[in-house]
């Protein structure tokens, strides 16, 4: 086991957090989307994190849709309004998304720190015998 092999562990953490950040930006971008290919309003996406076997980092097992009901907003003028004038809006809560975004950013930074520590250790090991 070498320090070099831990690069992969930290990289997997970075990749997973970035993917989580991608789902968050998708949620925020689609916060007002009422039409999707599957029909109905956009549904919030969530990344499910799963630890890799043998303590070799993490990966996103799958991306699931939030099955909570869409928000009904009274807006009779909207083309997608139903008979009562309610529009089904995406179940995206911007506050929740912002909090998740901060959490993902910080976790990403922590992985970068771990990666840099491993890099410094490897560089130090390469210095053996130089002086």
């Amino acid at each position: 086991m070498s320090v070099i092999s831990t690069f992969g562990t930290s990289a997997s953490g970075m990749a997973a957090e970035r993917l989580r950040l991608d789902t968050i930006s998708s949620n925020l971008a689609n916060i007002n989307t009422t039409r999707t290919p599957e029909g109905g309003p956009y549904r919030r996406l969530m990344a499910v994190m799963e630890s890799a076997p043998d303590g070799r980092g993490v990966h996103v097992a799958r991306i699931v849709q939030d099955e909570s009901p869409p928000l009904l907003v009274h807006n009779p003028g909207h083309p997608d309004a139903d008979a009562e004038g309610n529009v089904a809006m995406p179940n995206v809560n911007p506050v929740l998304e912002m909090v998740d975004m901060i959490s993902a950013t910080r976790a990403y930074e922590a992985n970068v720190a771990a990666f840099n520590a491993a890099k410094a250790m490897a560089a130090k090991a390469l210095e053996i015998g130089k002086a």
Partner: protein
Amino acid sequence: MKILDDRTMRTLETALDVASARHQVIANNIANVNTPGFKAADVDFVSSLEQAMAGRAEPTGPKLTGRATRVGHLPISGPASAGQLPVVQTVDEGASMRVDGNSVDIDLEMAKMAENATMYNTFAQLVSSKFSLLKYVISEGRR
């Protein structure tokens, strides 16, 4: 006394191995900071070093054998200086303050990582110093 394979060198080599194994475990904890139900692990440095040294201190030493991926391959083996190190791992199964059952404390992990990296650098520096001493002697103290 052997010049290169003395006890100091072997201890330092093993300590470097244990420190890098510990870094792997800490990096894994950090990577799984948002994984529900994940329990943080740690490597007991002293016990791992003792165990690894006990393994290496034997006169013949445990042989690391190459894994043959085909029947026709010749068996290869060498001294147990590379590859998987048997480290003493502890898993924090205690109560977590988080609702998702994850027990990673990111402050603790970052502190442990800094400590471990410093230790690794120290051992690497000591190996370096040992080599410069040898060089000094080989060049009859002229440099």
